[in-house]
């Protein structure tokens, strides 16, 4: 179980997260929707300590930490229970696909190299990159890079994988292949928090949808409830604008 309680975050005078609390059960796939600037990415980054929250508490499994006062060891401990998939992939540019996947295992978790390589090969095969082990990120397409990113997160067997707009930087043709992989991760029963603008993905895969706006959670519920019967006016407004752009989607 992952629980974030009363998280607050300010950038200068701009309050990005105003007292947000989110709870995710084991194996749940939670999709966070919302307009740009609503604080969804910041929330995700705070959970992984890529951003230091101004207050709040975080519980992952049986570990509870204060988001503001966590020490270096606590932060490292939380990071080793979580994995992050970035919007712009952020693969290690000086490492090949397989080295990217092995890095967390070998250096952070001290898995013996041969075993790590085996696991990394398995992960890369699983995302359909069995012929790209020794390619550097610069030699891979965006979709392939993001699949390496997913393999790199997945191979660590984390308690939760955090996806920060994993398909936003991809062209429409590559979005599909990447979403398919993310769906397969979800089918494995891994806990996931996904920030995305892909409505059909949210509807197909999510167990729970959270709608954020202006630094607060406006509404949360099952995808059916949020998409077909939103309680809040703001949610309705947002969905109507997005869904009218998506011809594949009908309520």
């Amino acid at each position, binding site marked *: 179980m992952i629980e974030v309680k009363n998280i607050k975050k300010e950038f200068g005078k701009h309050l990005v997260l105003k007292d947000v609390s989110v709870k995710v059960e084991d194996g749940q796939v939670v999709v966070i929707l919302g307009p740009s600037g609503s604080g969804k990415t910041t929330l995700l980054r705070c959970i992984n300590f890529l951003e230091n929250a101004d207050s709040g508490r975080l519980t992952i499994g049986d570990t509870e930490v204060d988001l503001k006062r966590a020490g270096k060891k606590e932060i490292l401990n939380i990071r080793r229970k979580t*994995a992050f998939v970035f919007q712009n992939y952020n693969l290690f540019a000086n*490492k090949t696909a397989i080295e990217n996947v092995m890095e967390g295992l070998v*250096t952070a978790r001290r898995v013996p190299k041969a075993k790590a390589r085996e696991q990394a090969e398995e992960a890369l095969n699983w995302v359909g990159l069995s012929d790209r082990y020794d390619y550097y990120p610069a030699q891979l397409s965006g979709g392939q890079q993001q699949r390496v990113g997913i393999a790199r997160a997945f191979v660590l067997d984390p308690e939760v994988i955090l996806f920060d707009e994993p398909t936003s930087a991809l062209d429409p043709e590559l979005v599909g292949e990447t979403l398919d992989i993310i769906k397969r991760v979800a089918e494995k029963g891994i806990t996931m928090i996904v920030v995305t603008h892909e409505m059909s993905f949210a509807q197909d895969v999510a167990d729970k949808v959270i709608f954020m706006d202006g630094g607060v959670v406006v509404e949360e519920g099952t995808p059916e409830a949020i998409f077909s019967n939103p309680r809040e006016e703001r949610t309705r407004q947002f969905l109507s604008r997005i869904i009218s752009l998506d011809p594949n989607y009908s309520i």
Partner: protein
Amino acid sequence: MNFNLDHFKESLIYGLIYLPNTLRLVFIPLVIGLSLGTLIALVRVYKVPVIGSLLALFVTVYQGVPIVVALMIYNLIFMLKFNDLAAFLHLKSEVSDVNNIWVGIFALSLTSVCSISEAIRGALLSIDKGQNEAGDSVGLTKVQTIVRIIIPQMIPVAIPMLINNVVGLIKASSVVMAIGIVEIVAGATIPSSRTYAFFEGYAAAAMIYWAFTAVVEGLAQKLKKYTGKFRRNLYD
């Protein structure tokens, strides 16, 4: 003006005899500059409190001092204070026992630490912040990320600027003539004081510097290719 090839050759030989001095004046400061310079650049880029700003101040101030001036100051301090210091440390050596090439090496080292730290800082700043975040996210410590991810990516970016530094250092090494150290230029003009063939002497020195620099640049290009093999070769 007649160009006397025999005098030129003689000067060339004398210059080459003192090449080892120039090598010491270049490579010891280079090694010190690379290690301390990288350290200073990392401290500044990762914004270590207090030390970072102190080092920034030091680099800025020190880079404003011409190398000849710094060299003269160190040499004066060395000549006036070395005996006192040796006595204080109960050493049995005197100022006349110590080769003042070490004063030259010291002055060139400090200069190269400053300029190399700036070159490396520039290269570090060119690396995307996302690389650090990716390291964090897979559970690497800061030091592991720096050593395994950031520095290997920084090297090929830094090499063109470092070549500039090394070439500058090779040429700057000739200023130690001012405190009486014999290196390539002083060596090549030794015969000239007898033959009055100063033009040939300086031409020989220029020739040696040119060849030396060409070799260094060639090696550096190879190193750049090798360390940058992960980059798409768009601009190389």
